[in-house]
């Protein structure tokens, strides 16, 4: 089994890593601004940094997901990608659209909606780009020898992610309507269809790394994504409590979003149990670390920390505070960043023929980034809880409170330095692997 077209994945992963580093730079700019050092205000004001931080996050994750699909689908479908050339066209256009959007943000060219800042004109290019991507993936599946559940769930996730981009393009005069449909994108992505993508990648990695029977793994995959949609779709209501729509969402959103952690719990139990059950001892331990780590940290960041502020009684006070930023970081990190790092760690040795997975560097990267991110989460959490008490309960002025919590952003920055060091180590390994070769794919892919 050797699929030379899998090489495309490497370049998506490389783009992903490049944008990831850039995302962190803008994170530091915001961290320093919160701590009282806004020396860059004239060139990169806070809202520019925030838009860049969020959009780079989304683009590097999508690039990672696309790379994952280009790697996984040929192997699952037992068929080369239908067009490698078009896949490169898609890669380059993705990079160009992303970079154009980011540059525009520095010149006040954007739409002022969090996460969906990309201006309308570029939105259309995004749509074309994603259609091209889906065309290649679906074409490959169609021509492929087999259609596995893993491939199907992954593809379904990517397909619906593309579809759900559209409600974010509807124009409204009412801020409330804007907000309502912004959540169809943001929430239904991260607490819906992206979980399918995560589940698909996770299941592929578990099959490869643990040697547990595909039928068993894929059965549980269905249960997990079933729980995801069962809770996550109506769970959207947890964003509708306090934006000016009917009270019915307090009940519906409260109940169903409180069930959302179950899907993440199932994911964590699934990963750990398959690992325990597995007889095969795959030598790529570092990929296993990232895989299990992703499922576990996602449960903590999305499941537990999401639950912590999802009930309407709590959210009334925490809505729109740094508590949200605390949860956002650990959830995105565990569920999506770590699963991308996991598939890269698994794919690189196979693509390049170099086996760097025993090194101390890889392990240090894993622990430093995770400990750093947990520290950042605690810093955001302490700042957020203090903010909620002082501002929302004691009714102190916003800016007065912000000054009192500045110190927590110094802690944030220190933890972010540890985190970033871990990521740099990861990228050093990435670079040391070198570029993919046909020979490596022939030998390594069993």
């Amino acid at each position: 089994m050797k699929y030379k077209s899998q090489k495309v994945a490497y370049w998506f992963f490389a783009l992903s890593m490049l944008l990831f580093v850039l995302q962190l730079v803008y994170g530091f700019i915001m961290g320093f601004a919160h701590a009282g050092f806004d020396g860059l205000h004239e060139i990169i004001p806070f809202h520019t940094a925030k838009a860049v931080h969020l959009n780079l996050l989304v683009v590097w994750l999508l690039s990672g997901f696309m790379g994952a699909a280009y790697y996984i689908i040929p192997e699952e479908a037992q068929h080369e990608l239908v067009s490698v050339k078009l896949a490169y066209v898609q890669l380059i256009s993705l990079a160009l659209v992303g970079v154009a959007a980011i540059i525009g943000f520095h010149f006040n060219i954007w739409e002022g909606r969090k996460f969906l800042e990309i201006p309308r004109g570029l939105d259309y290019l995004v749509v074309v780009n994603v259609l091209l991507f889906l065309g290649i993936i679906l074409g490959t599946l169609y021509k492929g020898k087999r259609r596995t559940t893993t491939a199907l769930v992954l593809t379904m996730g990517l397909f619906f992610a593309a579809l759900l981009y559209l409600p974010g393009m509807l124009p409204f005069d009412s801020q409330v309507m804007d907000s309502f449909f912004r959540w169809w994108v943001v929430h239904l992505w991260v607490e819906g269809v992206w979980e399918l993508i995560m589940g698909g990648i996770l299941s592929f990695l578990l099959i490869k790394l643990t040697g547990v029977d595909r039928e068993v793994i894929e059965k549980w995959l269905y249960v997990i994504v079933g729980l995801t949609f069962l809770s996550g779709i109506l769970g959207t209501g947890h964003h509708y409590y306090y934006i000016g729509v009917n009270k019915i969402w307090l009940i519906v959103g409260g109940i169903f979003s409180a069930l959302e952690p179950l899907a993440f719990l199932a994911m964590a139990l699934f990963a750990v149990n398959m690992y325990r059950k597995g007889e095969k001892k795959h030598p790529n331990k570092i990929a296993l670390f990232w895989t299990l780590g992703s499922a576990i940290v996602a449960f903590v960041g999305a499941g537990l920390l999401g639950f912590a502020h999802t009930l309407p009684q709590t959210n009334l006070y925490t809505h729109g505070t740094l508590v949200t930023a605390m949860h956002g970081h650990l959830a995105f990190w565990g569920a999506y960043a770590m699963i991308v790092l996991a598939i890269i760690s698994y794919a690189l040795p196979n693509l390049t023929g170099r086996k760097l997975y025993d090194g101390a560097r890889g392990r240090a990267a894993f622990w430093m980034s995770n400990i750093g991110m947990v520290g950042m989460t605690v810093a955001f959490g302490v700042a957020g809880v203090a903010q909620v008490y002082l501002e929302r309960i004691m009714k102190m002025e916003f800016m007065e409170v912000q000054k009192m919590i500045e110190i927590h952003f110094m802690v944030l920055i220190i933890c972010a330095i540890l985190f970033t060091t871990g990521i740099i180590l990861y990228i050093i390994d990435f670079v040391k692997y070198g570029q993919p070769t046909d020979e490596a794919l022939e030998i390594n892919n069993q």
Partner: protein
Amino acid sequence: MLSKKQARAFFLGGTVVTFLVFIGLTVYSLSEAQDQTNYENLTEQVVRGKNLWDKNNCMGCHTLLGEGGYYAPELTKVIDRRGKGYIKAVLMSPVPWAPNGRKMVAYGFTPEEAEDLISFFDWIDDIDLNGFETVISPLAKDKN
């Protein structure tokens, strides 16, 4: 034990049912009778204000209706808290507004643009937010 087929049926069934309920609730809560936003007061001036709000990505620093950046004050109920004159001064300031040391962008809006934004805030302030409005406004401590 659960079979793969049953697991798939659970996935498909759960998805279809909750999706349909979700669409139903969306239609219901966005229907005219359930409006909590005084949609009829959404004048052209308010829309101009909203466009300025979007075009300048004010949400990158501020929250509004509890959504946005956590760097600058929540602006729902800002007129209650500060009054229109103060807000106008903020919006028209030719230098970065920063009475407490943290800088806003110096937009230097014209008086008309400032009025548009203020009428947008005025419209926002009248929305029924299911109780959130009493939490975010310091004035609320006298009211509740």
